Each structure stands twice: as C-alpha cells, then as structure tokens.
C-alpha cells in the first residue's frame, strides 16, 4: 500500500476516531452512566460534570504521558545500563562521557552557542524591530527578515554552504577574499572560529522570530511615556535605551530563553554542515553519533541536555503559575 493512501486512511481513522471518541464517550456519560433521569437526576448531572473534563483531557494526557513524560524516566533508566542494555552500570555512561574528549568539546561548544546565539538573535531582532517601526515599508522588510523561519535547518544549512564554499565562484566570502587578493579558505575548517560560522546560520533564522515578538512589544509601549521623554529633550537613543527597552525587558527575557532552549536542541545545522568534524560538535549532534550504536551513551547525553534545560523549565512553570493567579 502506498504511504500516501496509508496517510489518507490514517487521517480518516485518526480524525474520525477522535471525533467518535469525544462524541460517544460524552453521550455514554450523559445517557448511560449518569443519566439525567429518575430520582438521581440532579446528582447524576453533577457527577457527569465532574467526570467530563477528564473525558476531554484523556487522549491528550495519554499522549503527553507516553511521548513526553515516560521518555524522561525511560531515558534516565536506560542511561544507567550498558550498551546492550542488559547490565546495570550505574553512572558508568556518565563517567565515560566526562572522560571523553569529544563530549567535553561538544559541551564547551554548546556553551558557546548558548552564550552567542540567543544574545545575537535577540539583539538583531530588537534592532530590526526598532528600525522598521513606523517605516513606511517596514512590514515588507520585516517579512523578508522573518522569512528564514519558514526554511528547514537543513535547507538553511545548504543555503549557507553556498556562502561558505571554498570556490570563489560559489562562495561570497571567498569571492570577497579573492577580490582582495587573498587565498580562498574553508571557513568551516578554521579551528574554534568555525563554531561561530555555524552559529551565524541559526542567528540568521532566529532573528526574525525575535523581531516579530519584540516588535509587537514595542508597539504595546504606552505612547505617553515616549512623548513625555521627547518633550523633556531626550534624543532618539535615550528614548530607545532608557524608555523603551526597560518597558519590554520581560519580553526580551522570554525571547532570550525561548531561543536558548532551541539552541540546546538543534542538531541539524552541525550535522549538515560539518557532521561534527573539525571540532564543531555540540551536544545534540554528539548524541546522534551514538544513536543506533550505543543507546546507553545516547540516552546519557540526552539526559545531560535535559539537566541543562531544567532550570529554564522550572522558571517557565513559575512564571506561568504567577500569571494564572
């Protein structure tokens, strides 16, 4: 059976199944289990209303539990076993990781990514948001800078492979160097700095995201505060740094953390551009080099990523709870 037909059937079964589940479970609850008839009518209606939320939530809770909660536990347990998965070795995998030069490189590089990418993307996003604000063609400019968001990391990597190409007839960087009489080089093989050339790709993608959100935040700033500052004689830079930025600090933090989380998960760019060679490995790509080969090590790396993400997760939850009150 062709996958396309299979896909169509899945949509029908999936959507039909969902609708059917919600409809019939709801009907079953109202008509059969707690019917609103007879002596217990009132009590039954109340009972049915207590059960209903769980009826609506069940598929989601089940899927979330199976696909996101269970893996946290499952991965941790698996990381305590050896490669074949039949011998308990405690934290052996973690000890091996720490002893491994490759892991330390990946960890250090990932640290650089976390330091540079969110900062640059947020900064550039804020810059573009401010510059395009009230520009007559600002929306067109914004949508062009936002465009890389739609492109896959693999596609973006390929696009940048052209920019970095060794051949001065393909790569702009080497074309510029050639026009200045310099020899062509491969930017992806320059130790240490090649990490930054890879980061440029993610910054190129994420600036649009930061720009969209920060631009909305800038629009939300009360006009009076800006006007008052201008009347008091503030110049445009003072208005921006002393009036606008402090008022959108909360949004800046949200953008920053969102991109930070992303940086910890993206393996596509490194995988496509260098395959982790030339000292450019980061944790997600380092993990993929063990996937299908040594599940114990792979899950240990994944759990390290989880530990790094954990503070952000807790902070997010705290923020969300604060808002609900």
């Amino acid at each position, binding site marked *: 059976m062709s996958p396309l037909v299979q896909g169509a059937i899945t949509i029908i079964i999936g959507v039909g199944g969902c609708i059917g589940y919600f409809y019939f479970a709801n009907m079953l609850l109202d008509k059969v289990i707690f019917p609103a008839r007879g002596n217990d009518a009132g009590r039954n209606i109340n009972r049915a209303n207590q059960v209903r939320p769980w009826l609506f939530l069940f598929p989601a*809770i089940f899927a979330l539990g199976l696909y996101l909660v269970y893996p946290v536990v499952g991965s941790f347990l698996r990381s305590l076993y050896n490669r074949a998965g039949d011998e308990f070795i405690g934290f052996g995998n973690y000890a091996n990781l720490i002893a491994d030069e490759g892991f330390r490189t990946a960890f250090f590089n990932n640290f650089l990514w976390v330091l540079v990418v969110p900062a640059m993307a947020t900064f550039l996003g804020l810059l573009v948001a401010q510059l395009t604000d009230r520009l007559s063609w600002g929306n067109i400019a914004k949508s062009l800078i936002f465009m890389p968001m739609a492109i896959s990391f693999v596609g973006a990597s390929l696009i940048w492979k052209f920019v970095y190409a060794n051949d001065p007839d393909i790569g702009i960087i080497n074309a510029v160097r050639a026009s200045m009489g310099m020899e062509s080089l491969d930017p992806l093989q320059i130790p240490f700095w090649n990490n930054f050339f890879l980061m440029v790709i993610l910054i190129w993608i994420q600036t649009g995201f930061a720009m969209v959100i920060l631009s909305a935040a800038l629009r939300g700033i009360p006009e009076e505060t800006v*006007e008052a500052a201008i009347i008091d004689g503030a110049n445009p830079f003072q208005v921006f740094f002393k009036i606008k930025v402090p008022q959108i600090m909360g949004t800046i933090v949200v953008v920053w953390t969102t991109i930070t989380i992303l940086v910890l998960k993206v393996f596509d760019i490194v995988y496509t551009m260098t395959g982790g060679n030339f000292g450019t490995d980061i944790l997600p790509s380092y993990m993929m080099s063990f*996937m299908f080969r040594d599940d114990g090590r792979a899950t240990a790396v994944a759990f390290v990523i989880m530990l790094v*993400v954990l503070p952000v997760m807790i902070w*997010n939850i705290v923020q969300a709870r604060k808002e609900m009150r």
Partner: protein
Amino acid sequence: MDSIAGTKSSLTWAVNISVVVLVVLWLIPTIGLLVSSFRDRDQISASAWWEAPLPVEQAYRLRAEGEVRQDGGLWIIEGNVFDASEMVETFPAGSEHPPVAAFGITGREPGATAAGQEAENRDGGTLVVNADGSYVFTTNEEPGDRPPRIYVVAETPPEFTTENYNTVLGGDGMGQAFINTLTVTIPATVIPILIAAFAAYALAWMDFPGRGLLIAAVVGLLVVPLQLALVPLLSLHQQVGIGQSFVGIWLAHTGFGLPLAIYLLRNYMVGLPRDIIESAKVDGATDFQIFTKIILPLSFPALASFAIFQFLWTWNDLLVAKVFLPSSDESWVMTVRIADDLLGSRGGDWGILAAAAFVSIAVPLIVFFSMQRYLVRGLLAGSVK
C-alpha cells in the same frame, strides 16, 4: 515618526539605509541559492551566481574534424570550430556564434593562447584559431580516426534552465521524498489539533481539581528536549510492532506537538468572552455543544496558527524523521534525502544541491508568505504571555 519633534531627517535616512542593508544581507544567501538552481553546471563552474546575467567565458572542447590535406611532411587540418560535432549542440548551424576569445591544446589551459595567435603543438606543429572560429591545425603525424583535440574559450550568453529540477525530482529521488514529506506532514498536523482542542477547552473553561497543575505540566513539557524521547520510544514502537514506520512518526509528531497545541489553544480560549459561554449554559447548552458550536468556530485563528506551526515543524524536521522512519531510501523525507544522500553523492554539484534545497523549501515559503498573519499571531500568543 515624522510628526514627532526631535526627529531629524538625517536620522530617517540612516534608518532607511540600515534597514535596506540588513534586508539585503538577509536575502543574499537565499537569492544565491535560487539563482544557482536555474543555472547549468558549466555556467556555475565558469562564473559566480551574482554574474549570472552577464555572458560567461566558457571553455569548450572539440575534435579537429575539418578537412585534412597533406603538404610535404605536414598534415594540415582546416575547418571551423563551430562546425565540430561537439559544438553543434550548443551552437546550432546557422545561428550566430560568439567570437572565440582564446584557445588551447590542453584541457588544463583551455585559454592559453589568444585568438588569432599561433600556438605550438606538442609534436612541433602549430594551431591557429581565429575569432570567427576558423582554424588551421598542422601536425607531423597523420591524424587517425580520432582527430586531435582543440579547446576554445568563447563568450556564452547567460542561460537559465530547469534541467537541475528535472534531475533532482527524477533521478535523485526528490520527487519520491517530496511525497513522503507530504505523507508525514498532513496527518501529523491534523490529528494533534483535535486532541489538543478538547483538552484546551477543558483546561480553559471547565472547573475541576488539579487544573492548575495540569496547565503547569503542559508549560513544563513545552521545553522537554526531543532527544530524550528517541531511544525509549523507538524501542517501545518496536515492542508493540509499529517499528520504524509512517504510523510511528505520525504518533511521535502528534505527541511532540501537543504541548504547544494545548498551550496556544488554551491561551486563546481563555480570552474568549465569558458572557457568550455563560448565556449558552443558561440556555441549556451542554459542554459538548458549547465546545463544538461556539468555542471551535471562534478559535479558528488559534487553530490556524497552530496548524501552520506544526506544518512547518513537521515539514522541516530532520531528527524525528531520521529516527522514526525506516532507514531505507524509499521512505526518506526531503530533509533526510538532502542531508544524508545528496550532500555526499552530489557534494560538488551546486546546481543540483540548490535545486534540491529549493524543492524542499518551496512549500514552507508559500505557506509562510500566504499565512504570515496567523503565524505571527500564534507566535505572540505563545511567547508574550
């Protein structure tokens, strides 16, 4: 900003110019890809993509198939390079020929000698190629069945072709990969929406113990790294008999997409006017009716923005496809095909790579530009709150 006091026109200029510079910087890489995908291989290797509209000095090789005559100890071949069988394809008989700029005897230096000059042959003979293409080749040896080679460099007008796309979609399997991507994407986008919509309604408008905790859990799950899920879920899929298959990847994408879906939809639904829902309740509507008749239609913008997110994310995904789909090449999606196959086998073939990349990013770009409004709205609902 024109009406606000204190704004100088020089500043407005500076702003305009810097935005132009930024936009150009942002677009250059993509434009390079697009242009390269329409150029043929010879032109790509002869000149850079930003020179694509200009004529290209391109090297051609041909055999001296002209008339042979003997003059003393010498053999002389006379003819025109544009009549050679290897050239007729590019320059059909009767069409206007570009002037020959230079010529050579070795492939290493196809333009070693300027047109009209005399070049020394390896065996002591000479070769002259004139700008109009006529040549005189003298040699000490009798030319056999395979006439000697001549290389010429001529200006070729810029040429754009869709050849790369034909190659990529057919022989290189991107056509199949495109269908596979579509197959993965559509169910993986549709199914989570329904599940999430019901859950979001319960979390937004139904009162029950543990609601706050569940919302917090969803917020927490938003950032769980996918990497954790790979090993345990793949072995789970293998135990229940799904293995690496399309069903597996649909389930996986559904699970991974749910936190964002629930979060976005709940945030939106909470903001719907309470009056409508309460008056419907007073009129005797059940929760199920309120959901299907009032909430769902009103939530269309949020549903659309999640659908776009999930579509872009599943279409562009490499990690989940690498792990949950079979590793045989007939079920590769486009990202896997590019990253694992074309980059290796077609490494230096820039035209092919560009066409492949463009095939894979065309649909997301269309979706992006036609539904940007919803995408922006979704981003704002998901992050600013």
